């Protein structure tokens, strides 16, 4: 650890000294060609000048100011922060995969293409939706792909002009309404009923002939099964609309029930969640879409296809919504997810959902009584508590509870989401936490509930044992400082005339 008390005040830009360098670059030894005219060339670029050791120490120090799944329990609801197998990283870094140029001829890329085709087939099998597009770079782009497929399908059947609306439950991730808007639809919110599932009567009232699709997260963001989803699917299809599935929570139902069997037309998956690719501090991820055969022609480009001679190549589906990236998608992430599925097989994946759900329910049982449980139903992969009593009775907000958890050595859960739960604490332990670590986490939250009664200011002041204390977020937004600026030059002596 540094003895410098204010690491944040000194960027790489503020360290080192002119003339230092972290790496050597060869000089051109041959006859130099003339450079382009000066008008096309830049002035000197301002970048840090550090020796290699200094730069490595700086970023090593920064890494010490971070908390990852490898650091400890990270029960961030709806994010599925499970342990990431290291062999999957190793596979993706094999030079035969990692060094390939995206435009390399298909004949020279059969190993990668075979692996991608196998991944697509496995995801199709797991979702019951066999038309799979691997191109989307993340869940939100997968959503966009899915909703553009809906748009294209309606357009192809001459039904787009009349179907302007997309229905989204009030418990949905913010990406769902944002995606529907990006895909050119108007959003109508559908309320959830007292049991946390979609209010069927409210749905019936708004589900008209002008609806393009209903977007549903299964299980929903309360960690609950969406009761009657098969009936919802039938009703949506009767109205001529499509059923979109947000597969962010697939971990709960892996191998147990399939989107296709439930009546979904298209879903996106988050491979960095369910299939355990490292989250990377906020990406990269991958967000494949899985769809019914009827929607296959609309999949994002490219998809892998097999020719009669058994060779593979990338093609553009007939009525594709188009490409989502300049090349083919997050290949490195796809390779990791493939390795994960191949390591576990179907029995291993069923053990994933079994243990994820057991862990969440065990945690629920250990915390019941300490925090309010707005929905009394059995949990699936995650459980949503409310800190409302703590706020009402002790003036302690969920925000304070989350900060205090840091002092106990845990990453806090997702807070203030879903929006329909006041002071929400959304906890997803995942299957890779042991019984003991769940018990330790629950013990910490129970201790915090007691602290809230006894000494609320302890929570208001938390965290005390973190690399930095609470930050002035309002100040950051009011007067944004968003990049390094060189220190102000000392003023030149004024020329008195």
């Amino acid at each position, binding site marked *: 650890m540094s003895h410098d008390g204010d690491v944040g005040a000194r960027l790489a830009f503020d360290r080192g000294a002119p003339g230092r360098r972290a790496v050597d670059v060869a000089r051109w030894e041959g006859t130099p060609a003339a450079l382009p005219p000066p008008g096309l060339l*830049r002035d000197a670029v301002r*970048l*840090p000048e550090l020796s290699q050791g200094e730069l490595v120490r700086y970023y090593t120090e920064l890494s010490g100011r971070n908390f*990852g799944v490898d650091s400890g329990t990270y029960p961030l609801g709806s994010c599925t922060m499970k342990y990431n197998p290291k062999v999957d990283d190793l596979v993706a870094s094999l030079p035969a995969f990692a060094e390939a140029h995206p435009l390399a001829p298909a004949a020279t890329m059969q190993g990668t293409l075979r692996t991608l085709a196998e991944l697509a087939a496995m995801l199709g099998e797991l979702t*019951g939706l066999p038309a799979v597009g691997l191109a989307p770079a*993340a869940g939100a782009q997968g959503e966009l792909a899915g909703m553009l497929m809906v748009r294209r399908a309606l357009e192809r059947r001459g039904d787009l002009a009349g179907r302007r609306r997309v229905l989204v439950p009030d418990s949905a991730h913010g990406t769902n309404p944002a995606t529907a808007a990006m895909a050119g639809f108007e959003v109508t919110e559908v309320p959830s009923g007292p049991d946390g599932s979609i209010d069927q009567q409210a749905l019936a009232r708004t589900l008209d002939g002008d609806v393009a699709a209903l977007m549903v997260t299964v299980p929903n963001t309360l960690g609950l099964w969406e009761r009657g989803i098969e009936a919802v699917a039938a009703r949506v299809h009767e109205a001529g609309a499509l059923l979109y599935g947000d597969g962010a929570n697939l971990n709960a139902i892996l191998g147990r029930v399939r989107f296709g069997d439930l009546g979904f037309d298209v879903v996106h998956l988050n491979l960095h969640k369910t299939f355990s690719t490292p989250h990377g501090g906020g990406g990269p991820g991958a967000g494949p879409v899985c769809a019914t055969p009827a929607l296959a022609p609309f999949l994002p480009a490219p998809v892998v296809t097999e020719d009669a001679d058994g060779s593979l190549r990338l093609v553009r589906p007939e009525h594709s919504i188009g490409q989502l990236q300049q090349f083919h998608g997050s290949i490195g992430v796809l*390779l990791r997810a493939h390795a994960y599925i191949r390591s576990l097989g179907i029995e291993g994946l069923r053990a994933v959902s079994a243990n994820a759900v057991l862990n969440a329910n065990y945690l629920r049982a250990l915390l019941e009584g300490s925090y309010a449980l707005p929905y009394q139903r059995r949990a699936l992969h995650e459980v949503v508590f409310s800190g409302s009593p703590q706020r009402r009775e002790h003036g302690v907000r969920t925000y304070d509870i989350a900060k205090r958890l840091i002092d106990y050595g845990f990453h806090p859960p997702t807070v203030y989401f879903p929006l329909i739960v006041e002071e929400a604490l959304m906890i997803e332990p995942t299957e890779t936490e042991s019984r003991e670590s769940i018990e330790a986490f629950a013990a910490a939250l129970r201790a915090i509930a007691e602290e809230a009664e006894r000494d609320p200011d302890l929570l208001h002041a938390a965290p005390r044992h973190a690399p930095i204390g*609470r*930050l002035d977020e309002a100040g950051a937004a009011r007067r944004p400082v968003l990049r390094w600026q060189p220190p102000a030059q000392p003023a030149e002596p004024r020329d008195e005339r």
Partner: protein
Amino acid sequence: MTAGGGAPTPYIPNTDADRALMLARLGIDSIETLFDDLPAALRDPAIALPPALAEAELMRLLARRGAQNAAGERPSFLGAGAYRRSIPAITAHLVSRSEFATSYTPYQPEISQGTLQAAFEYQSVVCELTGMEVSNTGMYDVASATAEACLLAARVTGRRALALLEPLHPGTADVVRTYAFGAGLRVDTLSAPQAMTAEHACLVAQQPDFLGAIRDLESVAGAAHDAGALCIAVADPFALGLLRAPGDAGADLVTGEGRDLAGPPGFGGPSLGIFAARERFLRQLPGRIVGRTRELAREGHEPRTGYVLTLQAREQFIRRERATSNFSTGQALLALAFTISVQALGPQGLRRAAELCYQRAHDAAARIGALPGFAIVERGPWFQEFLVRGPLPPAELARRLAAREITAGLDVSARPEPEARDALLFCVTEATAPEHVDALVAAMGTIGARS
């Protein structure tokens, strides 16, 4: 659950004994009970997956698959959007630290300062390279970042058409069309900036252009502004070690691909979309933004400097259907790698690497152009890619080189530009092995002599 009652997989710690304790606490006999809400008729379908593989078996399978990829080892002269770079060794070392790699979006700044401060470094590096005032923390790739830039331009101008200036990477143009389909925007392809009209929200221009030539961005930006539109420059950040910063030349928004400086090409992904803008568009930016701030009062201490996600009211989780984008999980780890590579190179190193790239490419082109039957198409100043016409049709030339285990430049002969006629687009960078260039020149010499 498993024979012998052990843990079911190496990644699941709980044994049958643990599960028995937990189930007892829940007062149920079986985990299956927890799934009672799922529709019984659809429960536990038959799912056919290949059998599970132990770690060593998995590595053997993938090593076999890898051996079916010939592309990695061959001399390759493909560029066209993905450029092999000499990546400093420390980059892979530092980004593999699991405190970086296994964390997520920094929702809790107190224990995410590593990710947040590194993102601030990234924004700073991007602003310096592009000559822009603000940057987000990165997007999926250059093409989707460009599409988001077009959506921004349409929002702020209120115009419903986009202009793409050729030659533009076809993948970028394709992605812009995909996003424009959702937004209901028209996409026009222009062969000259003067074709801009008052209907266009923006003009998208690639630097260097898709066929390798360095543009005079100032005149492009001028034409866009004359039409009341924004200029979106799609710039190669490595080339900006040498070339004029697009912001300095008048661009309003700059996008670019950061993958090449983050690591190996990886068959094209994951990637890193650079997105930088003039300050006046700050509240219209898609994606995450990190800001610098200070601790709230800390008893007995001077508040320390820290970093937070900021200006979040633009984002989907607050603004929902009215957000600037649905963007959520991005490319943080690639942004970190990009930042470390650029900072390791430093101001002199980046300039020298860009010049080395320029010189190696020009030397290779000169050698090829001197071969009987071969010519380099003259297009003015260029950086690392050049158009080659040979004694054979492009596809045939590429086939003959492939027979010698050399991957030729991209066949661009079907493109509309006259200069692309009968041509292959070759790329040589600072990371291209000199002996690969020697092999190419020798092979071309042989092919030229025989035809």
